[in-house]
């Protein structure tokens, strides 16, 4: 186990903002100095475009860049060839749309997904309706977990694709992805796991999950903005043409034809975001050093503590599972205080939370609400912060006269 207070010292932002209680980690996380230093050092010591350069700093830059891929692919237990760099989870999903789904899903084929998806794992697939593809949404149980019975009934031989988040960014629900992948495969469908909220917070092993695709974002796990990962099984990547096209991904180009180069570069046209990718490698080093089991336990601890305290506040409603497998994301509504007013009030007390629909409008509609206030935790959060948070909620009840 580890000490949130000590970890906090690694994060310069808490030096500039001494009293900041940052509970918006599902949106983006803060960065430790190890990552910021790596970024700075890269730019100050060996910045050069990667690949093809023969001079010293270009070789160094390329080595650092490919080392980051090694680190991150190890982190999710994929092969190096199976990890494609993208801008983030959203772009990764779009690459699957344009490299595979758009050309392979046909009229009357079905996609199965859930009502708890983030817009980024929902809006892309709507494009396929153009080609006559049908989308089916699986609903929830009363406690905010996924209705697995309904999922089993929804997946059929017509299903060509199942796409599910591993952890809801609103409810904190953790879905049984191994089971879902199995159901998909038993019906001949491919399966994508949106791991934007899981890879940062728990051990994720793509081989164990056995999914066909998995996506995540660096900025939600101590890394810089502008980097994400697309994992896909090698045999799938080998068969596909890349969606994004350009330089650096080719063996040879003639006027009317292009021969792609080897994996993973085949899917990475143009100059990659190499400096940030190198820094992302250091973010993963930082997490590895903490140990993902410990990260998960730390958050489980905080979440349990917070849920207990929150349940003692009258007129406070929590959306999402109260116990069982869930992550450190808590959505709530306090009496008739509008989520934005709640967030403003918390901000006045130096507590940063998010309010609104959390890019999950269909889920909001399903829950019959317009939004929630959401607190989400990470490694540098502490029980003392939760105490202050609970106190402030009590204060809000007075100010808002509920």
């Amino acid at each position, binding site marked *: 186990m580890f000490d949130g207070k000590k970890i906090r010292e690694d994060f310069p932002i808490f030096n500039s903002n001494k009293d900041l209680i940052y509970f918006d980690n599902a949106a983006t996380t803060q960065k430790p100095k190890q990552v910021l230093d790596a970024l700075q050092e890269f730019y100050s010591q060996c910045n050069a475009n990667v690949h093809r350069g023969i001079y010293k700093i270009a070789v160094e830059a390329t080595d650092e860049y490919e080392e980051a891929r090694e680190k991150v692919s190890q982190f999710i237990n994929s092969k190096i060839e199976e990890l494609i760099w993208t801008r983030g989870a959203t772009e990764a999903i779009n690459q699957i749309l344009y490299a595979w789904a758009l050309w392979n899903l046909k009229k009357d084929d079905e996609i199965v997904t859930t009502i708890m998806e983030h817009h980024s794992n929902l809006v892309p697939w709507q494009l396929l309706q153009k080609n006559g593809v049908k989308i089916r949404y699986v609903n929830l149980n009363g406690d905010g977990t996924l209705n697995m019975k309904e999922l089993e009934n929804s997946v059929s031989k017509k299903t060509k694709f199942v796409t599910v988040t591993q952890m809801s960014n609103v409810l904190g629900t953790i879905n049984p992805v191994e089971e879902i992948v199995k159901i998909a495969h038993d019906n001949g469908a491919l399966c994508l796991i949106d791991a934007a909220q899981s890879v940062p917070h728990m051990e994720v092993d793509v081989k164990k999950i056995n999914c066909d695709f998995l996506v995540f974002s660096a900025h939600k796990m101590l890394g810089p903005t502008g980097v994400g990962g697309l994992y896909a099984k090698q045999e799938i990547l080998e068969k596909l043409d890349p969606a994004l096209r350009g330089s650096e991904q080719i063996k040879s180009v003639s006027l009317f034809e292009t021969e792609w180069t080897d994996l993973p570069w085949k899917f990475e046209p143009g100059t990659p975001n190499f400096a940030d990718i190198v820094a992302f490698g250091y973010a993963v080093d930082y997490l590895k050093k903490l140990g993902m089991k410990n990260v998960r336990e730390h958050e489980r601890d905080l979440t349990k503590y917070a849920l207990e305290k929150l349940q003692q506040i009258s007129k406070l409603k929590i959306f999402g599972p109260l116990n069982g497998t869930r992550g450190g994301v808590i959505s709530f509504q306090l009496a008739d205080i509008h*989520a*934005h*007013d709640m967030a*403003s*009030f918390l901000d006045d007390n130096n507590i940063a939370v998010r309010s*609104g629909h959390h890019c999950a409008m269909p889920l909001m509609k399903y829950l019959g609400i317009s939004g929630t206030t959401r607190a989400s935790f990470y490694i540098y959060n502490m029980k003392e912060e939760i105490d202050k948070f609970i106190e402030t909620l009590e204060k809000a009840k007075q100010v*808002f*006269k509920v």
Partner: protein
Amino acid sequence: MTSMYAEEILDHYRNPRNFGELKDAQIKYKESNPLCGDEYEFYLKVNNGLVSDAKFFGDGCAISKASASMLSEHVKNKTLDDLKKMKLDDVLKLLGIEVSAARTKCALVALLAIQKGIQKFEGGKNDGSQR
């Protein structure tokens, strides 16, 4: 610190004045704040260039709803030109509170609905923002 949630604001939030639809309004416009999700439709009846009645419908935070409610009272017997000249500061004066930078958009939704509605009514080019 708690100045944004003064008694009067909360009162207008919980008991919005002129809340509902106005069937025979000549001016009718829905405006939303896409970042926050606040959404209001404003209805204005005009007589001899003066607003003779006003109502609004919709939902949002305390700041946006209070400003809609207060504006629905304020606009009566004003000329359309008066209303077109109104600015953020005028809304803040009505609200009687300080509004943080993040929330000025909330304070403005209702005024935008009114002003865009007038613009449309006066045959101004429809700017496409009405759904």
